[in-house]
Each structure stands twice: as C-alpha cells, then as structure tokens.
C-alpha cells in the first residue's frame, strides 16, 4: 500500500445476539479506502451476520458502525435500511444471488440508479412529459450501465433476461449492479462461490481493478482462499463470532490461532463444503 491509509468504515464493539445465541461478539476492525478487506472464518462464524448488520438488515444489539464520508461520520446502526445504501454509499451483493430475475440485464443496472433518476424525473412529472432534462439523465444512466457491462464482460448480454444468464454471469451482474449505485464501500458476500478456477482468477483481477481505479473500499466474505490470499490487503478472521486475528495475508497464514480454528479442535462435525475449504486453506498455507 502506498501512501496514507484512509479509514472508511470503523466497526467498534459490534455485537449481535439472537435470543441466547451470540452470533457476533464484540467485533472491532477498520476497513480502508482503496483496500480490500476480507472476512474469513469457518461456516457459522458470523460473517454474513456482520454484513447484515452493516447493511441494515439486522439492528445490532450493541456497537458502533461508522462510515467516514469526507468530513462526515454516518452512524449506520441508526439509519433506515435503504438509506445505508442511498446516503452512506454501502452497496452489497448476496450469498445467494438476488437479481431482478424477470428484468433484463440493463434494466437491473438502471434500477440500481433509481434515486438519481427519480430526482431527475422530478417524481415522474418531467419523465411523463419527456422533458430533455430527464432524457439526458436517462442517457447518462445508460452510459454508466454500459461502462460496467463493458468492464465486467457482460455487454453482449445487455438485453438478456437476468434470470436466464449462466451462474457466473449472474454473479458478475450483481457486482455490476452494486457498482452502479456509485458506492463508497462495496460488500461482496462470497463472490467466488460457484465459479470455476478461471472465473475466480478473473474475479481477482476485476476486484483489484475496481479497488485501484474507483478508489473505493471493498469488504469481502470468501471461502475461496486463492481469492482471499491473492488480493486482500487486510484479513479479519472470525470464529464463533469473535475476531481471532486481523492482519495481512502473510500474518494470517502464520497465525497459530487461525490454523487451530481451521484445522484442529473441531467441536462439531464440519459440513462437506466446509471440509473442502479447510483443505484448500491448508494447501495454500503449506505451499506459500
């Protein structure tokens, strides 16, 4: 990392309880601009819960979630769900892709720019009358969508119905849709899940490109260690809702607590998919 690190999102003492179960326990870390921060951990460690707290789908039981936007500090835990996206600039994708499946690829990206277009259409009045002001805004929105479609290699599929796309394309479209909102921080929930090795390598290049060109922060939940270790500037390791390590890829690989959490002393039998992730991790860990 060259230059000063600019903090973007400060998570302080985040705790999320569901009745008796503590899903996230006193988690604190900071995500920086122009950096990729990965959250890893075994299944059930509370990674997606952290995302859901950040993006307003859960109200945290305790803690402070501060988005630093220039001079302003926006406290996410006090904002309404949709405002976290529209005002604080938090965009996310979902573990099980959530596209507008019946709409076309291009429409998905235009819906993502709803708030800007809505303002330009003067609550639809200018839009109904077809005033030039709205037409210009719509053209700009299409250009923006075109930019991201080009960038993610979906331009040929622009007029396809989103639900008909192959799985890998759907994942990329979801990322494009999140980027079309013009976010400060992009939260990706397992973007490499279900991708083949070639697609996952392309994803790495893409995410590094977004980090460097757009100057935004990326927060990543991922099981695929080739992605996590290859591109993360910072890795936060969760186990049973607690942070057990926080550092660069090299530091994490060497951390005995992390190795223990992933490889030894399992209390519950791991799921088959999880086992694979373990092996992937240990292999990467040994060879690197």
């Amino acid at each position: 990392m060259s230059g000063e690190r600019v903090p973007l999102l400060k998570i302080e003492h985040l705790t999320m309880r569901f009745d008796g179960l503590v899903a996230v326990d006193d988690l604190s870390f900071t995500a920086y601009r122009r950096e990729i921060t990965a959250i890893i951990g075994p299944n059930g460690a509370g990674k997606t819960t952290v995302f859901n707290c950040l993006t307003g789908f859960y109200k945290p039981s305790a803690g402070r979630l501060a988005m630093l936007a220039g001079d302003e500090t926006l406290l996410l835990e006090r904002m309404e769900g949709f405002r976290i996206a529209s005002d604080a600039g938090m965009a996310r994708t979902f573990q099980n892709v959530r596209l507008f499946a019946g709409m076309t690829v291009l429409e998905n990206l235009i819906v993502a720019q709803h708030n800007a277009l809505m303002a330009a259409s003067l609550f639809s009045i200018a839009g109904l009358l077809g005033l030039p002001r709205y037409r210009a805004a719509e053209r700009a929105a299409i250009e923006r969508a075109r930019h991201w479609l080009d960038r993610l290699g979906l331009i040929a599929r622009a007029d396809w119905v989103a639900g008909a796309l192959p799985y890998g394309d759907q994942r990329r479209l979801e990322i494009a849709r999140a980027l079309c909102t013009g976010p400060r921080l992009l939260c990706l929930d397992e973007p490499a899940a279900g991708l083949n090795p070639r697609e996952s390598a392309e994803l790495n290049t893409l995410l590094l490109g977004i980090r460097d060109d757009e100057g935004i922060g990326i927060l990543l939940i991922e099981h695929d260690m080739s992605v996590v270790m290859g591109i993360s500037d910072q890795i936060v390791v969760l186990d049973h809702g607690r942070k057990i390590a926080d550092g660069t890829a090299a530091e994490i690989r060497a951390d005995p607590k992390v190795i223990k959490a992933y490889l030894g002393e399992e209390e519950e039998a791991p799921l088959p998919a999880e086992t694979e992730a373990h092996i992937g991790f240990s292999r990467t860990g040994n060879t690197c």
Partner: protein
Amino acid sequence: MAVPPAGPWSGLVRDALVAALVAGLLALPFVGLETYDIGGGALGIRTHFDRVAIAIAAVFAGRFLYRLLRQLYRERPPSAAPPLARIAAWGNRRAAAITLVGLGFALALPFLPMSSRYLIDLGTTVLIYVMLGWGLNIVVGLAGLLDLGYVAFYAVGAYTFALLAHNLGFTFWEALPLTGLVAASFGIILGFPVLRLRGDYLAIVTLGFGEIIRIVLLNWSAMTGGPNGISEIPRPTFFSLPFARNAPEGTTSFAQFFGLDFSPDHRVIFLYYVILALALVTNWFTLRIRRLPVGRAWEALREDEIACRALGINPTNVKLSAFAIGAMFGGFAGAFFATRQGFISPESFTFMESATILAIVVLGGMGSQMGVVLAAILLVTAPEFGRAFAEFRMLVFGAAMVAIMVWRPGGLLARREPSLHLEPRPTAAQSR
C-alpha cells in the same frame, strides 16, 4: 403413430382401474343409496347399483382415454408447441398490427352497420373492465402486490362523484379529477398498514379493506343512503351541452346545437367514447410510467424487495405510489360508472367485482396490457352468450378459468417487453 408397447398399455389399464375403484367407493354411498320417506317420519333406503355401475364405467373410460391421449400427445415432436401457446406467440409477434386493428375497431364500433344500442352498451361495460384491469395491473402486474379489494377504489370513485354532485352540484367533468385524488388517498390509507405484508397475507388484508368500504357504504345511511344507494346522479355533458330531448331553460341540448334529431343513442355513444378515452389514457400512462424510474422500481419490487432495499430504494414510497396510482384509475372508472348508471348502491361493489377484475389481470397475463383487453372481452361477453343456459354460467366460467390456467399458467398473453434496450454505441466518427 406406433402402437405403444405392452408395458404402457397395462399401465394405462391399471391406472384406469384404480380411478374406477376410487369412483366406485365414492359412488356407492353418494349415488348408490337414496333415502326416501316411507311415512310416519321414517326413512327407507333405495339402492341404485345400476347408476354406480355407470359411474364406474364412465370414470374408467374417461381416465383411460385421458391417459391415452396424453401419451399420444407426448409422442409428438417437442417442437410442436400447444396451440394456445402458438396463438399467443403469433399475437405477440403481430402485437403492433393487432393493437392498430383493435383500436380502429373500438373507435368505429358505434358506427358499424351491425352495431346496436345493446352492442355499444356491452362495449362500454367491456371498456370499464378493461380500464379497471389496467388500473389493477399496475398494482398486481407491475408491483406484484396481490390486491383482492380493488373494488373499494371503484366504489370510492363512484360515491365521491355521486356525493359531490348531490351536495355541491359538481358536474362529471369537474368531479373527475377529484374522484381520482380521493381514490388515490384511499389507496395510500390502505397501503400504510400493509407495507410489511406480501403475498397471501396482503391479499387477505386487501380483501378485508374492500369489505370494510362496502359495509361502511351500506350502513352509513345518512351519508350514502345505505342500501338504497344514491340515485339521480347527473349525466355527463358534451362540453356543457346536455343530452336531453328538451333542454332545460336557457341551455341548448346536444341535438339542438348540432341540428340533429334527438336520439337517446347519442348519449350511449358519447359514454362509450368517454370510457374509451379514459381507458386509453390509463394505458398510455401505464406504458409511459413503466419506462420511468418509478415503474422500474415497481417491477424491481415485484422481483426482489430485499435487493431493492440494498440498492437504496425506499420500499415504502414505491409501494404507496403503486397503490395510489392503481387506486386513482379505479376511482376514475368508478366516477364513470356512476354517471353512466345514474344510480349506485353498495350492491355494485361486492367482492365478486374484485374477483372478476383480478381474474381479468391474471387470465390476461400479469403485466400484459393486451392480455387485459383480451381477458376483459372474454370475461364480460361470455356471460352474455351464456344467457341461454344461465344456471350453468358460473360452472362454465369456472371451468374456462381452470382450463386456461392449466394450459397457459402465465396468462393468455404472458410476455414482458423490456422497458429499454441497449442501443449500439455510436461510432467514434458519429460522436465527434
């Protein structure tokens, strides 16, 4: 076609035997035994085993034939789409031409040689349902909010106009914008409590809302006249020229102004064109708003509400706007209904109406404007043709609905037209 091998044949027979056995078990008590009065309050039992045998034989034969036909059908090449689907695909390809022909027909209807007062009246009724269908299509088809109480807004529009006319002397044209506004407000009132609900739960609450409005209209006698309704609702005027044989003092009637002989048909034709215009405005508005951010947000909300929130779209505003705008068109249609009938009562706004309008939207294909027209024509005119066998009307109606849903589960003309396309990028030479 080749004779199916032995396996399927015995399968067919076995399947038909099972069906016949079930039929026999059911028919034995229901058909086979009949009680009758043997005097002194006692009951005797007659047996009809012949009828049971007929029932079993009929079920066996029916089931066997059904399975056989299905098997034959399946052996045809898969490219041969079912006929309904082929007709729908043809309709979608020729959508522009069909629209033009349909519009031309609608415009010319009152002056066609075969047209009569009855036909124009029927056309007016069809158009009311087309308009209601298009209005409900915004809520159900675009925003995906299942509304079983749409008739409430229709009633609100009708009563708003009737009350404005009676108490404040409003004419139809003065009251029309207000009826839309009042109905839209009711749409928002309904919208607030149901913001968190979806699907079945939403349907139940909206059903209740429709009933509340009807029951209030029925019981608030001082305001609405209760079950007696409101009569003598003013008829619309042609730019303040009334349609009357003898114009009131100081005014000219439509016939006098244009130097025509008075005919009661003038008003009927005029009403027909008014509802045609209102319906076309509804259609224009819907087609237009689908291409605007609000319309796309409605569709996005239908597809995935959680994703909408994650993109910073305020779901409350999106839902309320859908309810309000859908209700507004219901209100307009209601005002037209009131002025056309000249009399309204709560009986016109029962759940049956809501169900019919919803059936029009669902049968036509959710979100399809042409589908609504087709379904409205079918649902409104079918009972007219069925007058001869009136008692079986609902049976035929229900059977037709089941048949359509089996063969075209998405509706007659289910197809979504994208709201925009990516135009090829202008080449460097053009842009410079």
